[in-house]
């Protein structure tokens, strides 16, 4: 019954969105929708569904999962250089992408999660956006390897060779699938855009499972070949320099400015590489500054010029670009949306809602304040 219901879906990709010319040919892969439906197919009518009640996403970001804590180790002697930024107003297109993933609930055989992406761009003084999703997925111990392979295949165009079942925990599956979807979108934007500034949420650290060096390098190269510059903003970095948080080093610098950090190793380990030069960006008045990674293979003047164009063409609030802020806002799930997705799954797949007891609450009463298991 449920299978039949799912087979009735006839989804086709939208052939052309209302994108500006630069990215108007970006298409949502039919595979991705099919993959979502395929995972939902293993839900059976009457499966138990324990809705997740968190009102805020608690999944760690892919960055947090894999970012090294110690970068500036002995004997490296990093140096700092202040680069003042002069805004360039020239209507350079600015494109930002962000992806949110969220655990929606649990079934008796796996987890239900949802992924949504937002692409926001600014051109000719106007912001526009495209939101993709939400796409619900049902990830089980049985299908997680297959789903992950297919995600990698679509995102990285690689043939599945490794077995990830031992390293892919269901707990982090939403975050990792979200990261792969984000790579796919980043690639799509890099291919479709010319002479633009592409803003990423996160760093240009490569060598993790979801950000292989080859793939990330290829992404940056694609962007470079089309005269784009990738600027990757990290909201919260754990990197420290001379004992202080990296972003504290802008101190009393007059914005807009960059603080260039030199003298650190490019290779963090056998596998991990820094594909970007690390800066601390204080691009407007306010208390905030951010770690900014800019493609290492770009000449430094190009990197600085890209920052100048960003400052000249985008709104910056607390040093954070508005385009990227909007991308985050449009992709994030609100509590109401989570309830809506849960309701969608219950309605379309006839799930039976149960509430599992909160063990912490049971054991510790009002003192059981930690997250539900």
């Amino acid at each position, binding site marked *: 019954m449920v299978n039949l219901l799912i087979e009735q879906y006839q989804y086709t990709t939208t052939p052309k*969105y209302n994108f500006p010319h630069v990215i108007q040919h970006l298409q949502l892969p039919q595979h991705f929708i099919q993959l979502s439906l395929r995972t939902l197919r293993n839900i059976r009518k009457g499966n138990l569904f324990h809705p997740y009640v968190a009102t805020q996403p608690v999944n760690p970001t892919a960055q947090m999962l894999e970012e090294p804590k110690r970068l500036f180790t002995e004997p490296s002697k990093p140096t700092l250089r202040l680069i003042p930024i002069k805004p360039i107003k020239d209507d350079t297109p600015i494109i930002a992408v962000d992806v949110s993933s969220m655990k929606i609930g649990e079934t008796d055989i796996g987890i239900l999660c949802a992924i949504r992406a937002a692409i926001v761009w600014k051109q000719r003084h106007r912001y526009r956006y495209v939101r993709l999703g*939400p796409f619900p997925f049902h990830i089980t111990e049985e299908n997680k390897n297959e789903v992950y392979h297919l995600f990698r295949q679509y995102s990285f165009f690689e043939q599945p060779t490794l077995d990830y079942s031992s390293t892919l925990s269901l707990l982090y599956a939403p975050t990792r699938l979200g990261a792969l979807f984000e790579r796919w979108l980043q690639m799509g934007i890099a291919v479709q855009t010319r002479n633009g500034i592409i803003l990423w949420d996160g760093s240009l650290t490569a060598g993790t499972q979801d950000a292989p060096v080859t793939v990330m390098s290829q992404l940056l190269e694609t962007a470079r070949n089309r005269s784009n510059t990738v600027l990757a903003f990290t909201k919260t970095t754990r990197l420290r320099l001379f004992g202080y948080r990296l972003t504290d080093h802008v101190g009393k610098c007059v914005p807009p400015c960059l603080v260039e950090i030199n003298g650190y190793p490019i290779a963090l380990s056998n596998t991990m590489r820094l594909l970007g030069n690390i800066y601390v960006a204080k691009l407007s008045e306010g208390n905030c500054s951010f770690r900014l990674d800019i493609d290492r293979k770009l000449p430094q003047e190009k990197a600085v010029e890209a920052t100048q164009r960003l400052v000249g063409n985008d709104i910056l609030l607390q040093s954070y670009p508005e385009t990227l802020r909007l991308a985050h806002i449009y992709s994030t799930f609100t509590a109401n949306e989570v309830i809506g997705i849960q309701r969608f799954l219950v309605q379309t797949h006839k799930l039976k809602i149960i509430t599992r007891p909160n063990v912490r609450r049971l054991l510790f009463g009002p003192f059981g304040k930690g997250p539900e298991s």
Partner: protein
Amino acid sequence: MRLYRKEGNTIQILCFPNENVEKGDYLQVEDPKQNKALLIQVINVQFANVPGILEELLRDSTNNGDIIHGENLDPLDVASQITLIQDARLLICKIRGTVQNGKLSVSSAWLPSRSQSNIKKLSTTTLAKLLKINDKLPIYIGDTKEFSPLKIDAAALDGSLNIVTGKKETGKSHFSKLLVLSLIEHGAPVVVLDLNGEYANLGYASDGKKNQHYSKIHVLTPAGNFKVTLPQIGLRVMFNILIHALNLPGTSAREFRRTWRLLKKQGKLNLHELGEAIRNLQCNYHVKDALFSRYYALVNSGFFTDNPSEAMTLEDCFRKIQTGGALAVNLRDTSFVDRQIVVEYLLGKLVEMLTGWKLKAVFLFAEEAHLYLRETYWNDIVTRMRHFGVFTTFVTNQPDTIRENIYRQVDNIFLFNFTSERDLETVSRAAKVDSETVKSIARDLPPQYCLLLGRVVKDFPIVVKVRALDVQTMGQTRLFFN
């Protein structure tokens, strides 16, 4: 719909936008295990307080105007469910009773299951059947929300004190005319104190032709076809007129009584002789002046005559309407003082006839009664006269002109739209349901919609769209630009 919460007499129901429920609707919360249902009425509809809604609204508000445009690519149409939750409603309901085995009781000492209960709408027609409100003498007053006719029992108006109230142009007068005609049809005698002459043409259809009520509507125009002689009035009624309508001081009143009795003894009780007698009075000139001024007020009212053929006997009039009919006393072109004289006479005579069992009972319709009834008569009408058989319906757009002690005795309220908090507060104190119900429902009633409260609906408030009447109502306001 799902049962969400109960606090005191209030129940909250969670409802989705596709479930069409409005203020005033009745819902039945069926508990299959207990085999009974709680009857509740929706008194307010709010948005459900869904977490995260503020973030969504803020996010979407950046979408206004030219600031940011975008597209949502949602091939699975998950957003439809999200929108549904955004628009989820919370129905604030009041418990009215319990339905068990097809019988309705006012008991509400139980609670249905939150998880197992089924909630469904109860049509007003079904409710009316359960309440048995149109059993004996049905009055078709209008249509329910489901377009089925709603009838009330005329017997529920018998012996009752009623108030028809609402702000201007909401249909109060129309509704009271409907009640008048319906009571006539059931053979009841009705007296209307018609302040604006609106009831004069109730015997004519809207096309100007005589209708079936024509022979039953009798219009009395003071100083026109409604005149009386002094002997008809009697000293007691005349005394009331002089003291209450014309404010005659006590000393002068005593002198007047002496004069009246003398004239009556001499068989000369008429206006002319009364004037002469006052002129020839040997008394304090202040008293004489006072009596003269009142005398001329009586003469100038045109309501009194010395010609018996011009005079009208009220007993005869009541005889005409004893098996169903209305006496519409047209007070339109009558001054404030003359109005009081006429009403004092009419009510005095009415009580006289009722106490003498010349009349069984009468339904009195008083429009804006504060404009012609003295203060003390209010209590008199609703307490003493009620026992004699005067069943009053006050029609007013100023509910605060009716005193609270009268409200306390009200049996039925026919409530039209009010927006003023003060007016709603006044009415809600009198109604036999909670004030929240009155305030919340009445505030949003469209014109011609009436909230029925009291005996006629067995204390289950019902909203009805008052039916149209094919009569010349004449209640419309005269306009300059039309």
